[in-house]
């Protein structure tokens, strides 16, 4: 009886010991603040009487969440870089490391039911919008477990209320057409410019008659936001979303941000900007570092706790990468699927008239 009791006790104790470190954290959490208030940079305003608040409240829970998601995006992008160099990812790959504050801050300021669309530098927003790292990486490696079943690749990932990921961009005329109609019909639309200072290899000063993008909506009010501070982005987004929801029409947000990588994996990113500039941004304005400092300095979290999250994220990325390179490619006989929606099956012609693929919606 005593032996059995000892066995049970030891099993229970060993169970506790091998439990996730989170249990240790929970015990210690009464030493952390529940929330803190931070000063954030005042946004430049255009055609607006008032702007977003200059302070932001951050709960411990939210802070840990933002940190985790930003770190996930960062690690995922770096893993994508590695997979690309190992030739598991092909074609175009546009990474957004450095811009994590934008995608996470945006999502924090809107609802799941709001609709989002963006350009090809979309991996971060995919995660923010709820896609799993596995689904994104497997799409990048072109496997059947990818979010587009391997058929879209880097630039064509979609999720609920997220319309991609688009490869054709830059159409400034279309943008102004959109501004006009949105303002004319008072559409609740937030136009966001993630200004990372460069259009591919060309600095904004060489491409734009005015680089005050937040003013270029003309009759549409705008704000310029520090895109490297996730709280600033969140508050600005909340403000912009509220503005739209109140029926006042469209609004423009310029997020000042930076990308560490070149335009894409085929661009080293140092022929048109200096390594010093990149390093300078990394050491002074890195969005993850800024959040970490805020949280640690105001006792919202400890350095160890955040390191714990780093390890968990690292493991998640490794697992996802492993999946992404071992999952099989889509089956050849699905080549013709998804041409039309809501359609009866039909035949799709291959490279010659004798090669046929079945097409199912």
């Amino acid at each position, binding site marked *: 009886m005593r032996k059995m009791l000892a066995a049970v006790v030891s099993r229970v104790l060993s169970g506790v010991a091998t439990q996730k470190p989170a249990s240790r954290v929970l015990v210690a959490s009464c030493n952390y603040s529940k929330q803190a208030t931070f000063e954030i940079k005042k946004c430049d305003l255009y055609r607006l009487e008032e702007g977003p608040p200059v302070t932001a409240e951050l709960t411990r829970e939210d802070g840990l969440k933002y940190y985790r998601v930003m770190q996930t995006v960062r690690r995922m992008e770096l893993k994508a870089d590695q997979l690309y160099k190992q030739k598991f990812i092909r074609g175009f790959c546009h990474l957004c490391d450095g811009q994590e504050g934008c995608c996470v801050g945006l999502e924090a300021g809107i609802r799941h039911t709001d609709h989002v669309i963006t350009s090809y530098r979309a991996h971060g927003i995919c995660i923010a919008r709820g896609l799993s790292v596995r689904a994104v990486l497997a799409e990048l490696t072109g496997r059947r477990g990818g979010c587009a079943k391997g058929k879209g690749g880097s630039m064509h990932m979609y999720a609920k209320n997220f319309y991609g990921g688009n490869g054709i961009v830059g159409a400034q005329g279309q943008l102004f057409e959109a501004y006009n109609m949105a303002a004319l019909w008072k559409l609740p639309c937030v136009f966001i410019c993630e200004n990372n200072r460069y259009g*591919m*290899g060309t600095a904004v000063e060489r491409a734009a008659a005015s680089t005050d993008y937040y003013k270029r909506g003309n009759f549409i009010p705008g704000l310029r936001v520090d895109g490297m501070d996730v709280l600033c982005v969140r508050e600005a987004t909340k403000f912009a979303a509220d503005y739209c929801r109140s029926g006042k029409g469209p609004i423009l947000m310029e997020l000042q941000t930076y990308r560490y990588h070149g335009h894409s994996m085929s661009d080293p990113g140092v022929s048109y900007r200096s390594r010093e500039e990149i390093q300078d941004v990394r050491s002074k304005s890195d969005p993850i570092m800024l959040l970490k400092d805020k949280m640690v300095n105001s006792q919202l979290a400890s350095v160890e706790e955040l390191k714990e999250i780093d390890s968990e994220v690292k493991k998640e990325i490794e697992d996802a990468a492993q999946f992404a390179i071992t999952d099989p490619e889509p089956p050849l006989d699905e080549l*013709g699927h998804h*041409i039309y929606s809501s359609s009866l099956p039909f035949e799709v012609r291959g490279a010659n008239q004798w090669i046929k693929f079945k097409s199912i919606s």
Partner: protein
Amino acid sequence: MAAASGLVRRPLRQVSGLLRRRFHRTAPAALQVTVRDAINQGMDEELERDEKVFLLGEEVAQYDGAYKVSRGLWKKYGDKRIIDTPISEMGFAGIAVGAAMAGLRPICEFMTFNFSMQAIDQVINSAAKTYYMSGGCQSVPIVFRGPNGASAGVAAQHSQCFAAWYGHCPGLKVVSPWNSEDAKGLIKSAIRDNNPVVVLENELMYGVPFEFPEAAQSKDFLIPIGKAKIERQGTHVTVVAHSRPVGHCLEAAAVLSKEGIECEVINMRTIRPMDIETIEASVIKTNHLVTVEGGWPQFGIGAEICARIMEGPAFNYLDAPAVRVTGADVPMPYAKILEDNSIPQVKDIIFAIKKTLNI
């Protein structure tokens, strides 16, 4: 295979006059030039020859070109002749057409022809139709150039072939070079032509070196627009292609030759105006026709060739229906296995040839 030739940079092997011996006139050893360098050379020579010629597009100047085709040109000719534009295709294509109307000779680069869709109204309505609409008053001596068609893993929005779309329009000339000689000769002819010319290059061919005959090394080397070239003589079947698939056809021909089937491979070089006479003469000789293209089958280049053959004298010489080998009728998928099966492969060409020969 497809990806490798684009990604691997083969070194330029230049063996020239050094091998020429003093007292004996021996032929110079073959000069190898990549398609990229051939286009670069062609543009460089025309920029030098005529100060009205200039190049504009995204990243063409300080970045040396997104695919390095315009490498060194900005350094040599400066801001007034090599112009970086904002990412605004409709805008800068319109500016280029206006410049051509006013008397300059612009080369308007689209980073890929997929982006030309943003500007297609300018290409068709402002450039192609104008000489006709003006009753011959206003010409538009412009060149639209850039990579066209499938690359490697660039997915649906970046892999479309525009040969059929642009080839459809009267008023436009459309050329599609395959090798370095084609690339240089055709870009030079395009620049000197007083009409709007669309030059459909191929990204996967940019890094591929070809033997550059001596004639092509001349500054006045031109390939006439509207004339196809017979790359390989044959007697059993006529195989017609343009751009990268020409190489695949030659590979197929080499394989079939071992089986005693001799293919005549025609490199179209020009999509519009199409050199149907060369194709007809060949079909009259071989009695069989296979067309090969990278674009989609419906309303494509092959479809046009077949229609014209039926309308002309060669129809009566066909011993079997003509066969088309094309890209698959789907938006280009990303996954490698799907992409590989969405473009015409050598095995598909061989299969089609054997089918039409009833072998």
